[in-house]
């Protein structure tokens, strides 16, 4: 099995304004992009579990023009709130880097 980091060229999270968090996974070409999309590891239910939000709150976009998968979720607390742990939302993708994906043949 490969890990997501072996296939993607960029995995990141960032604030999309103070109330939302957005995840970008970018691939070097259409083939690797389509492979990960088809593998289903980045699905609405999986992302709902990952970000600890309701599935109905997950926006998931397979963005073919950029060979990218984008996921946007509401922040658990707004950016900069006392309970916030990540002001810019920049490190929330961490555990996704090593999730397993079938090898790109």
């Amino acid at each position, binding site marked *: 099995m490969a890990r997501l980091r072996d296939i993607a*060229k*960029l995995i990141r999270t*960032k*604030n*999309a*304004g*103070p*109330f*939302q968090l*957005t995840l*970008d996974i*970018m691939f*070097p070409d259409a083939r690797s992009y389509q492979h990960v999309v088809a593998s289903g590891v980045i699905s609405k239910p999986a992302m709902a579990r*990952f*970000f*600890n939000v309701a599935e109905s*709150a997950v*926006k998931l*976009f397979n*963005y073919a*023009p*950029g*060979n*990218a998968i*984008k996921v*946007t979720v*509401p*922040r*658990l607390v*707004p*950016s*900069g*709130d*006392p*309970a916030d*742990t*990540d*002001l*810019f939302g920049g*490190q*929330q993708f*961490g*555990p996704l880097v090593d999730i397993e994906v079938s090898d790109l043949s």
Partner: protein
Amino acid sequence: MTRQIRYLSPTGILGVGFSEDHFRAALSRDLAFIGCDAGSTDGGPANLGGNKPFFSRAAVKRDLRILIIGARSIDVPLLIGSCGGSGGNWNLNWMREIVQEIAREENLRFRIAVIESEPPREALIEKYRAGKVRALDPAPAIDEAVLRDADHVVAMMGAEAYVAALEGGADVVLAGRSTDAAIFAAVPVARGFPPGLCWHAAKIMECGGAAVVTMEKPEGMICTITDEHFTLEPVSPLQQCSPLSVAAHALYETADPYKMLEPGGEMDLTDAQYDAVDERRVRVRGSHFKPLPYTVKLEGAAKIGYRAMVLGGVRDPVILEQFDSWFGGLKAHIAENVEAIYGPSIRGRYDIHYKVYGSNGVLGAREPHPERIGNEIGLLMVTLAETQELAYSIAGQAAHMVLHHSVPQWEGLLSNLAFPIAPHFWNLGEAYKFVLNHVVELDHPLELHPIRYEEA
């Protein structure tokens, strides 16, 4: 010959620094303008709420001096959006004073447009009563009191304010809070280039040279728009754009990769196509813009109290192997101690936020492996209370409680925290929160954004 418009974005945010040499080399008389974004909500709500600049005066002045001298040397307008970090009136005036100071020091004469973005509260409340303030998703619940009592509320202006300021003869436009893209879309759209291309390019250009393959340090970008496409080229000869790096930046900090709302319409990037021109340049085509009723987004920050903090590290393996139970007992102990000193009425009037680095300090409740603790953990405790004195006092007590909190296996007095800073707890000042994620419908684009002019 195909008509075109070119412009320069020297840096992603004013005050972060950029290479003066690359900037000068990029100056050319065929530039229509130089644009620079100076703001963000990324620093949190205190920038707007507490009248704080995003970067230091010295850093902002350094960048501004280079930009003003450069723009004046080729006689093109300099457009700066979200002045002072948040674009509030205080922040805007802070930058206006710096610009005037630079003009005096450099013996330059030019016309400044100052565009405010903090609407009178009565105007906002009137809009709210008329049902013209709409929540975005997600948004906190609001009422009139939120609009009235927030420390500062700004409305993010669109492109029209920049165009009006230039029509008023401005050489340097200092805008309050603005959408980042409006700074760069204004002139190309006004000159009749396809709005889809103009807004899409602006969305990427607002970050200066950030849409490059590898950003060693922030440098600028030049954009050339024609009726068919736009082309991006980094100003640094050492940097390259690739279709991936440019597409990645179109996605950056946006909730939806296809549709992005701006005042007066929506970018639609569904048909966008990113192609390499050569090793360094990328060409984009196929972006659209759909006009919509004119709305501007509101940002608001309200004070929620004062904070103080403690930071230390735990290295005792005996504590670490039972960290959860030890830490649970500790938190209860701190609450008891605070109540013993201030009485039961203190309950609900203060908060302590604990962040445990090395366990789940970064992901919080989302951490899938909070049990994986290494050789040490870092413990950050931030207190919040209605006065600075109370927040400070509770931080001091919490520090003391952690230090001596018992460990079942040990006897005698313990010192459980290694403090890296002396004194070991300190004041953080006012705390704010964002209270709005709403748009307001306008009757005309300049309704909330008055422009005034002054000579430098």
